[in-house]
C-alpha cells in the first residue's frame, strides 16, 4: 500500500511559485539578452566616451576630460581661447524641442479625429481603414521623405499647381525651412498617434457619450468632460510615441531641412562624422536622453496626480 505523503502547510504553493518564477525568467531571457547587449552595453560605452578626449581622426583618446560635457554649453574661441556660449547648440536644441512639440500638437489635431472616424466605422470596415493607416510603414522612411521633397520643392507638385491656377507668381520656398521639417515629421509620425488613440476610442463605451448628452451636455462639453478623460491614455501614449522620436529625428530634418536647419539628431551625427568629436557627440546623446527622461517623469507625475484627484 502506498504511503500517504505529508506536506508542510504552504510547501506545495511555494514549489509552484518557484516553478512559475523559473519559467518566467526563461521566457524573458531572449529579451533580457537583447536589451543588455543592444541597449545597456552601448549606453555604458557612451557614458564612458563622453568623459574622454577626442581623437585626431575621430574615435577617442584614453584620457579623462570633461570637455565633452562642457562643450555642450560653452565653446573655446578658435582665435583667442576665450569661452563663449555655444549658441548654435542651444538654438538647435530649441528648434528640436519646438518642432517636436509642434509635430506632437499637429499629429494630435489630425490624429484624434482620424482615430475617432475609424473607431466609429462599422466593425468590418475598421480593419480596412487601419490597414490604410499602416500602409506608409511598408515603404522606407528615406523614400517617403524624398517623396515629400518632390511635393514641396520649388518645382514640385504644390508650387506648380498653385502657379498654374494663378494663386502665386513665384514658387514658395518650402524646402529647407522649419515648415518642411514640421510637415515631414507630422506626416511620418501621424500613424504613431492614430494607432494608440484608435485603441482607446475603440474601448470607449459610447453609451457614456449618450449618457452625457442625456444629462444636457452639448457636443463640445461631452467631448471635454467625458470623452477626452476616457481616451487620455491613448492620447498620452500617442504623444510620447510622437514626441520622443521627433526630438531625435534624423532622416527627415536631414532631407527636408538641408544643412542649415539642423535638429538634435543631426547635431549628434555631425560630431561622430565630420566634427570628429565623439565625446561631445556622446554627451549630446546622453543629454537628449536625460531631457526625455525628465520630461517623461514629470508627465507621469502630473497625470498620476490628476488621476488621484479624480
Amino acid at each position, binding site marked *: 500500500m502506498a504511503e500517504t505523503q505529508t506536506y508542510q502547510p504552504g510547501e506545495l504553493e511555494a514549489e509552484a511559485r518557484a516553478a512559475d518564477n523559473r519559467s518566467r525568467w526563461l521566457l524573458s531571457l531572449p529579451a533580457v539578452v537583447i536589451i543588455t547587449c543592444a541597449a545597456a552595453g552601448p549606453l555604458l560605452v557612451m557614458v564612458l566616451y563622453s568623459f574622454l578626449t577626442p581623437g585626431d581622426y575621430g574615435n577617442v583618446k584614453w584620457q579623462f576630460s570633461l570637455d565633452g560635457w562642457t562643450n555642450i554649453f560653452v565653446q573655446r574661441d578658435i582665435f583667442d581661447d576665450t569661452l563663449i556660449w555655444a549658441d548654435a547648440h542651444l538654438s538647435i536644441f530649441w528648434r528640436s524641442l519646438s518642432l517636436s512639440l509642434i509635430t506632437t500638437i499637429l499629429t494630435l489635431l489630425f490624429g484624434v479625429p482620424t482615430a475617432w472616424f475609424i473607431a466609429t466605422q462599422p466593425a468590418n470596415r475598421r480593419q480596412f481603414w487601419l490597414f490604410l493607416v499602416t500602409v506608409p510603414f511598408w515603404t522606407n522612411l528615406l523614400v517617403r521623405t524624398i517623396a515629400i521633397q518632390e511635393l514641396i520643392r520649388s518645382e514640385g507638385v504644390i508650387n506648380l499647381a498653385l502657379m498654374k491656377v494663378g494663386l502665386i507668381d513665384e514658387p514658395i520656398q518650402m524646402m529647407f525651412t522649419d515648415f518642411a521639417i514640421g510637415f515631414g515629421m507630422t506626416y511620418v509620425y501621424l500613424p504613431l498617434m492614430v494607432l494608440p488613440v484608435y485603441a482607446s476610442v475603440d474601448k470607449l*463605451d459610447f*453609451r*457614456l457619450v*449618450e*449618457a*452625457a*448628452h*442625456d*444629462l*444636457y*451636455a*452639448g457636443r463640445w*462639453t461631452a467631448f471635454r*468632460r*467625458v470623452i477626452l*478623460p*476616457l481616451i487620455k491614455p491613448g492620447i498620452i501614449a500617442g504623444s510620447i510615441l510622437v514626441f520622443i522620436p521627433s526630438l531625435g529625428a534624423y532622416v527627415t530634418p536631414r532631407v527636408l531641412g538641408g544643412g542649415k536647419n539642423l535638429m538634435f539628431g543631426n547635431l549628434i551625427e555631425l560630431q561622430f562624422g565630420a566634427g570628429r568629436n565623439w565625446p561631445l557627440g556622446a554627451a549630446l546623446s546622453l543629454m537628449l536622453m536625460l531631457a526625455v527622461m525628465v520630461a517623461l517623469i514629470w508627465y507621469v507625475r502630473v497625470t498620476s496626480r490628476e488621476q488621484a484627484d*479624480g
Partner: protein
Amino acid sequence: MIEIESATKVFGTGEAAFRALNAVNVTIAENEFFTLLGPSGCGKTTLLRLIAGFEPPTMGAIKLAGDDITRLRPAERPVNTVFQNYALFPHMSVAGNIAFGLEMLGKPKDEVDSTVAEMLRLVKMEELKDRRTSEISGGQQQRVALARALAPHPKVLLLDEPLSALDLKLRKEMQIELKRLQHETGITFVFVTHDQEEALTMSDRIAVMNGGEILQIGNPKEIYERPSARFVANFIGESNFLDATLKGGQVTLAAGGTFDVSVPDGVADGAVSVLLRPEHVAARAGAAQDGEIAATVDTVVYSGEATTLHLSLPTGEKVKAKIGNAPLGDGSLPKEGDSAALTVATGAITVLRD
C-alpha cells in the same frame, strides 16, 4: 404627459430593413409608472430611445406636455435615462456623477451641492459619495445611476431594464425602492423590462409589445386577468388555451361546461379561443360530476408553494392546474394516471381576440 403618435422606426434600408416600431400610439399620463413589456427585439428599447432622443423616428411624433419634442436633441429634452448597464462615468466619483447633469444645466454651485446631498440621501449613498464608481457594488451603481438621472428633476425618467443585472434578492428590493422613489419624486417613470413579474409588481399601467407593436395597454390586473391577445396571455404568467364556442355572452368549452364571459369588442359568436389560468382550475381525484370537467393526470410537479398538475382532457387538449400546497400536503391531490374532476373558478375564462 407624453404622447407618442404613430411612431415608426425602420433600421437599415432595402432588403436589410428592419421595422423596429410600427406606428405605435401611446399616451403616458403624468406621475404614472408606465412599463413597456415584451420579449427582446419587440421594440420596447427603441421606443425608449425615441423618447430620449437618441434616435430620430422614421415617422411619427413625440409630444411632451403638449409640446412637440421630436426634433429636439437629447440634451434639450427634460428627460433623463437610467441605462441598462448604468453608463456611470468611470472617471468621476459617485457625487461627481450625480452632479454632472446639474452642472451641465449651469446651476449655481451651492444648489448643485445641496441637490447632490439630497439625492445621495434619497438613494442612501451618503457614505460612499467620494468613491469611484468602479469601487462600488452593482446594486450601489444602480442607485447612483438613479440618483444621477433624478438629480436634474426631469419631467420623465426613462429606465432601460435597470434591474436585469442584479441578483434576484437585490432585484426585489430595488423594485420596491423604485416604486418608493417614483412616489416621493412625483416624476413620470417609463420602465422597460422583459420580466413580466417585475412589470406586474411595479407598474400603474403596462404596454405589452411584440414585433414593433403595442398589443395591449392596461393596469397589471387587466393585463394578467383579461389579456386580449394570445401573445399577451402567453407572455404573462402561465396559460391554458382551450377551444370553445361563443354564443350570446356565454362560451361552451369543447371539453364541456358553459360559462358566462365578457365578450371583447370585435369578437363575433362562433368558434373562439379562451384563456384559463392554471391557478383558477381546481382538481380533485375521481369521476367528473355535473359542472365539472373530466380529465386524466399526466404528471405532477411540486414547486414549493404550489403543485402543478399536467392534465389531458377527453378532447386531447392539455391543461395545467396549479394548486396551492397545504402544510405538509393532505394527500387529497390526484396522483399520476388518476382520473380527475376539474372545477373552473367563476369569471376565470377570458375570450381571446385571436
